[in-house]
């Protein structure tokens, strides 16, 4: 029983870091991204390759993964120079597809479709209890970091970018720099989650990092409540919790997964329609499309 519970804590922790990091850009900066599972994957592959195969110390591999993801974040950040709103989403989508294809096809680096197996478990995660402790404290740490960031002068500018980029400029701030910084921080956080995930599961393959996973993470943030600290936590819990609850409920097997997806879809649409701030009540993506001068 404990180990199962701890396992859920591990997954919950990893996903909380993911949703918090996505919320930093989507909920606070107004840049919706569906490349997040790719960034998550970069972190995971970083650990898998540098720690699992090349036997660097875990911390080093973890950091390498984060740096790589940060660089990828910079690459996504660059389109945000020009693109707004839905066009930005499409750009991140393209990036997600490209990253997935890289993981899937460049087999001499990433192991291709077969993935990388046998990543040794680092000592601090050797039991599920330890892993749960590590992951929950990471979730706490990153939630705290995000909380501080979004309440700092830095976060205030991000929030203002979400509200009105022209206003940010009128107040003497360069939105582009802030957007890129936000995206890179978010990418690094996602990669941190990915590295821990890889070390815990001890196996990575591209199918864990698809567009659909990216969309699921985004939906979790929206459903939970974007632009808040509790919202993403709640979203991550739904993402991890709903399948587990349905597992206990015992739906007919032939439809269970479809029913789960339908529940996600309905939740998303209903939340948007009746509670645009998400369950927890954060920021709502209302109309703010001032026509550009």
């Amino acid at each position, binding site marked *: *029983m404990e180990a199962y519970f701890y396992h859920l804590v591990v997954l919950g922790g990893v996903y909380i870091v993911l949703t918090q990091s996505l919320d930093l850009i989507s909920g606070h900066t107004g840049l919706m991204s569906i490349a997040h599972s790719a960034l998550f994957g970069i972190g995971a592959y970083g650990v898998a390759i540098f720690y699992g195969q090349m036997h660097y110390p875990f911390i080093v591999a973890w950091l390498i993964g984060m740096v790589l993801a940060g660089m990828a974040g910079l690459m996504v950040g660059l389109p945000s120079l020009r693109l707004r709103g839905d066009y930005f989403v499409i750009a991140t989508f393209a990036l997600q597809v490209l990253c997935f294809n890289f993981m899937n096809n460049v087999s001499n680096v990433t192991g291709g479709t077969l993935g990388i197996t046998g990543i040794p478990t680092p000592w601090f995660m050797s039991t599920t209890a330890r892993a749960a402790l590590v992951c929950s404290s990471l979730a706490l740490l990153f939630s705290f970091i995000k909380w501080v960031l979004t309440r700092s002068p830095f976060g205030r500018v991000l929030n203002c970018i979400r509200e009105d980029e022209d206003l940010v400029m009128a107040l003497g701030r360069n939105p582009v720099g802030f957007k890129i910084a936000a995206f890179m921080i978010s990418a690094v956080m996602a990669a941190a989650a990915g590295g821990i995930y890889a070390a815990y*599961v001890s196996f990575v393959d591209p199918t*864990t990092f698809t567009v659909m996973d990216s969309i699921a993470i985004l939906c979790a943030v929206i459903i939970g409540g974007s632009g808040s600290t509790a919202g993403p936590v709640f979203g991550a819990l739904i993402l991890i919790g709903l*399948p*587990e609850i349905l*597992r206990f409920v015992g739906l007919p*097997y032939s439809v*269970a*997964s479809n029913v789960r997806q339908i529940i996600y879809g309905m939740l998303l649409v209903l939340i948007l329609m009746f509670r645009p701030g998400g369950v927890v*009540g954060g920021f709502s993506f209302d109309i703010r499309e001032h026509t550009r001068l």
Partner: protein
Amino acid sequence: MRRCAVLPALFLIVIMVIAGCSNQQEQKKSERSKATVKELLIGAVLPLTGDAAPWGIPPKKGAQLAADEISQKGNLKIKIDFQDTTCQPARGISAFRQLADVYKIPVVMGAVCSSVTLAIAPVAEKERVVLISPASTSPKISSAGDYIFRVVPSDALRGRIFARYLFKKKGLRKVAILYINNEGGVGNRDSFKNEFTSLGGKVVLEEAYPPQSRDLRAQLTKIKNSNVDGVIAVSYPDDTILIMKQAAELKVGKPFFYQTEAVEDPSVLKQAGAAANGAIYILPAPAEGEAARAFAQAYEKRYGTKPELFAAEAYDIIHLVVKAAEANGGRLEAEKVRDYLYTVKSYHGVSGIISFDSNGDVIKPMAIKIIENGKPRLLEIVGLE
């Protein structure tokens, strides 16, 4: 804002209640297993939902059939706890943990998707739980661990046998490989290619296509214009239909050899129709004899269809596990089951003749079949020799 803090709290409470319920379940189960020694609880982690469900539900049916048959005989009661993996590694670990840690089950059947089996394997090793897959064919599983078994041949075996067969019997020297760009497709491609080139053949073209692709004309056009004796296809049912139909449309004019059992899928036979005729394919040799026939009858009686893919394998797994328990005085212990399985030689199961090698891989003869007039016909049974 304040009102909303209630909701997450409620959510947590729901989770706790559910967790509490399952805890009680667990206690009941353990009490019961103490009361009657002769009840065996076996776990199963299968993709019961999602894209891979078509491969997960038949093993569930087969295993359930075996459990009920054995239970009816009297001495032993078999219960199987089925858990869903949805073919995702993390979910698979969740499911496995639930069985191994919550219910303390020593033997688990699963998983179907190779990626899930590979993800679960280290956990199974650490928790000392025997994991027997009815369907994972990735060559990487061979080295996944001491407690990891499978009753379906590795892609490595299938590729080797198919390569030898095509090289020696069909006289192929130059081939193209058309494969689905996922773990199964690439694993099969590699095993075929390694054997074929070591025999002296040449793989001229390797064309991949992404899963759920609906247009393979580009790949097939390239193959049509290449100088090859034949095409090896590694595909799933949906794209097998595409390959057959689009190859016919484009008049590719090369013989196709399918290194997959997907060809036998009812949807392929129906949708591809005449386009399927002449397709030669390889799959683990179906069992002959009384037991296999009885299984097919019982299965059809109970579920209304002929045994689908991997149902027989699951049926055999349950029987093997029960045999191991019987050899251990009716108790299920992971180490004992593991040791027993390594000694199994030429067990006549309903999925074929089963022996395990030192990796826990099954060694089975394979069958070469051909589709004629929309129906499969056995060409021959081939082994490694």
